[in-house]
């Protein structure tokens, strides 16, 4: 693994190094909230998914949701992290109308998950290990709606009490691009684990970003925390803006003030939200309504035994067992759904052709990454809404492999399948696209092409052998792509040699 190679930023006074750490808030996939039985479903009418506990009524007490604990442990294991067998819930006290109890139950000094590691794939193909500082469980707050009434604020408590995992990275990231890659990787892992749906638009995954700059090798600079960053694109923008702002400040001889800043997606800028002096004193203390959370090694082992294959392991397997090139393997595992699609596709091809995985893997990868992803991207479609199912695509792949259709024809059939959802063999049948491998029929066509192009024949015979591709092209045209290209080349060579 490579050590952080700082992507230095140029300033008027020389190079600057950018130091970034992320706090990712991931909503735990769970039917009910962290400490109450209320539903967590997104998009319900305001205040319809609120229990008396969530609304902070007198005498109400929190009771931990066992499934959420399991999800947090599962996530910790997926991040190669230390699982703390004893963790403690604390109260973080502050007043706000969307925080009904006047405190958020969180884990402060003793989180459920300790240090871990995420392997991040950088756009240049290199990988970087990013340290995880901790993961803790906490309640989400409700939502204050300021736009419903000219003078009043409305409060929706549906989200109040929903379980979040706060995943804190070490300050190991060195550019906005790296930060983006880290979030993408983290999101993929959570989705593979089934512990967070990773839906950034619905707020299931939100980032706070800590940014500071320093001269290479110097001590860490003062950091600013940027709140409200809810897409990978915004994350990169926010980091870019903030780092440039800090460099300008420092180069103008001003100091960076430690503060919380807000990212404005409309302008791409960050602005002061509150200074360190205005920071809340949260008066954390252990929540006396909850006992410390005690787990047994057995419990952790049981969860570990049920962990699914994660992106890195899957990628390694695709490379070793299916002989797929690293670039494609990486693309295939990025999204759980894509990987699932690909594996179903390979299995179906294997079933139809009886071939070994390592013999078909790379071809299958080419089809999915180039053809299918290409088409889906063009239409901004997700893999789940692909018009071609893995089995249907396997039908086409089998036709290609047994020589029924040529490579170029297969591309055409693919386009037809994508547009109409029809079966590959039906399209081939309908349009007469079966590859012609009958040497008699091919010979006649070869003779015609040779007869029609005396000039090129002369060139070829004069030693310009590359002209052969011209003849192949003519022949494919003549056969409307159905001619078996290998046989055609063979025949042409034979006849032209005469």
């Amino acid at each position, binding site marked *: 693994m490579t050590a952080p190679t700082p992507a230095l930023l140029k300033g008027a006074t020389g190079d600057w190094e950018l130091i970034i750490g992320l706090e990712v808030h991931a909503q735990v996939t769970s039917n009910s909230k962290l400490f109450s039985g209320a539903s967590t479903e997104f998009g319900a009418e305001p205040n319809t998914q609120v229990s008396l506990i969530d609304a902070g*009524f007198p*005498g109400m007490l929190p009771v931990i949701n066992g499934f959420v604990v399991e999800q947090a442990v599962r996530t910790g294991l997926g991040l190669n992290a230390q699982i703390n067998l004893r963790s403690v819930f604390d109260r973080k006290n502050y*007043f706000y109308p969307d925080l009904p109890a006047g405190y958020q139950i969180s884990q402060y000094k003793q989180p459920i998950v300790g240090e871990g590691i995420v392997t991040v794939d950088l756009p240049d193909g290199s990988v970087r290990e990013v340290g995880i500082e901790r993961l803790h469980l906490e309640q989400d707050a409700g939502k204050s709606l300021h736009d419903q009434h000219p003078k009043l604020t409305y409060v929706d408590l549906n989200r109040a009490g929903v379980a979040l995992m706060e995943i804190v990275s070490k300050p190991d990231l060195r550019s906005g691009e790296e930060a983006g890659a880290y979030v993408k990787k983290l999101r993929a892992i959570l989705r593979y684990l089934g512990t967070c749906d990773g839906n950034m638009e619905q707020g299931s995954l939100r980032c706070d970003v800590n940014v500071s700059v320093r001269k290479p090798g110097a001590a860490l600079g003062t950091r600013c925390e940027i709140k409200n960053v809810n897409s990978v694109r915004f994350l990169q923008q926010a980091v870019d803006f903030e780092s440039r702002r800090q460099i300008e400040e420092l180069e103008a001889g001003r100091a960076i003030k430690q503060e919380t800043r807000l990212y404005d997606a409309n302008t791409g800028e960050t602005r002061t939200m509150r200074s360190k002096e205005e920071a809340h004193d949260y008066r954390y203390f252990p929540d006396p309504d909850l*006992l410390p959370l005690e787990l047994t090694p057995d419990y952790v082992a049981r969860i570990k035994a049920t962990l699914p294959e994660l992106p890195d392991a899957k990628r390694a397997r695709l490379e070793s067992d299916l002989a797929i090139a690293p670039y494609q393997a990486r693309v295939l595992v990025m999204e759980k759904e894509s990987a699932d699609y690909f594996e179903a596709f390979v299995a179906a091809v294997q079933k139809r052709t009886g071939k070994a995985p390592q013999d078909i893997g790379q071809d299958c990868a080419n089809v999915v990454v180039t053809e299918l992803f290409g088409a889906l991207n063009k239409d901004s479609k997700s893999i789940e809404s692909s018009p071609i199912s893995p089995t249907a695509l396997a039908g086409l792949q089998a036709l290609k492999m047994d020589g029924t259709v040529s490579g170029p024809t297969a591309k055409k059939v693919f386009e037809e399948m994508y547009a109409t959802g029809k079966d590959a063999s039906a399209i081939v049948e309908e349009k007469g696209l079966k590859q012609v491998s009958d040497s008699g029929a091919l010979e006649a066509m070869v003779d015609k092409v040779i007869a029609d192009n005396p000039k090129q024949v002369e060139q070829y015979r004069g030693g310009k052998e590359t002209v052969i591709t011209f003849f192949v092209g003519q022949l494919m045209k003549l056969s409307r792509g159905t001619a078996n290209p290998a046989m055609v080349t063979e025949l042409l060579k034979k006849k032209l040699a005469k």
Partner: protein
Amino acid sequence: MTSLTDLTLADARDGLRAKKFSAAELARAHVDAMIAARPLNAFITETPVIAKAMADESDKRIARGDARPLEGLPLAIKDLFCTKGVRTTAASHILEPFVPTYESTVTQKLWDAGAVMLGKVNLDEFAMGSSNETSYFGPVENPWRKPGDNRSRVPGGSSGGSAAAVSARFALAATGTDTGGSIRQPAAFCGIVGIKPTYGRCSRWGIVAFASSLDQAGPMTRTVKDAAIMLRSMCGFDPKDSTSVDMAVPDFEKALTGNIKGLKVGIPEEYRIDGMPKEIESIWTKGAEWLKAAGAILKPVKLPLTKYALPTYYIVAPAECSSNLARYDGVRFGLREKGEDLTAMYEGTRGAGFGREVRRRILIGTYVLSAGYYDAYYLKAQRVRALIAADFANAFKEVDVLLAPTAPSSAFARGEKTADPIAMYLNDVFTVPASLAGLPGISVPAGLSADGLPLGLQLIGRAYDEETVLRTAGVLEQAAQFTARPQTWWKQ
């Protein structure tokens, strides 16, 4: 026949089953007494209609031989227990209009056992106080007065309304809650029995929280047997309270064998504090002699950290309360004062809604949890608390139960300590240590002071050993023969 309101809970239970009188008659007698006793200001909300309906239901059950353990027995409920459809105020202006849509686990268990609700009784605001003078609904009068002296005495607190109602015989028994002595001290001041069970025995679900790690519900009754009967119906594991214990509930009544031969009773020397009135010391000595006479073995024990209990308590309890009371913000329920902006609304609501003592404790609690002070106050207090619990654990290696006074004085006059919070807090000096350690403690009336006011003795037991506490209390009660009762001056 004695008047229905003079019966003990046990006798009333037996009388109902023997059909000597009906539950309706019993309820009516108590409702009448409750109305007659309004000058005591014990009730915040009277519920005679509910009492009647519940009593009628009980009569039907008794008629078909289907009586439950507390069938038809009229109780007063401290207004800290949320009661479905019945206003629950915690004696605070901020909750004055609050009507819960839910029933606390403990009161639900009592209703499920057949008990009848007379109403919601007064207390110190949010259970913060030792004299019942901090209630928004005005102070409760102690039914006891110094003979020949018309000045009001405090009933103790915070369960002062409960104690007054039981002592003055307009409830057979009452629920109380005890955070630092709020059951035991008013029981002592009003000449009744009050037990705080081990922390975790009773569910806290639906009880307005004061200090979560200390709050515990318990019964307040006129006899030890009544306490045993009622406690059994109040206890039990509740999955809705993570701090409630999953343990079988013993038949506490059966523990009252009267036999304490060979029982080792510890006398904690550190409870002999400077300036303790002679009469407290002498009732304590008397209590020890009674137990010895009944066959117990007396042993002096050391609880060296006793003197730190009070300051520890007055850090831990306010810290928790400052957080627990943050939810009273005017946003969702209770009082809301209009304000120009959010901060003004918060300040207006909480400033108007909370009384002086509650505000004082919120401020203390906020202070001790603040950055820079947390380690010196809250964290240190938690450590001392653990050491105090260890002190008790050591003592209980040598003895089975501890005997001590309940309070350092008899009921004081109204207004006597309101100007001096420290003097008021000192009232909890004997009750707070067991609270911090989560141990069961009971107060039993043991005699009268020179002023003719009740004095209580306290027994503290091992965790979950309420049975030994109750058995020993039964022996004390037997020996003390406390038959004095307050004069019914409020009826004149």
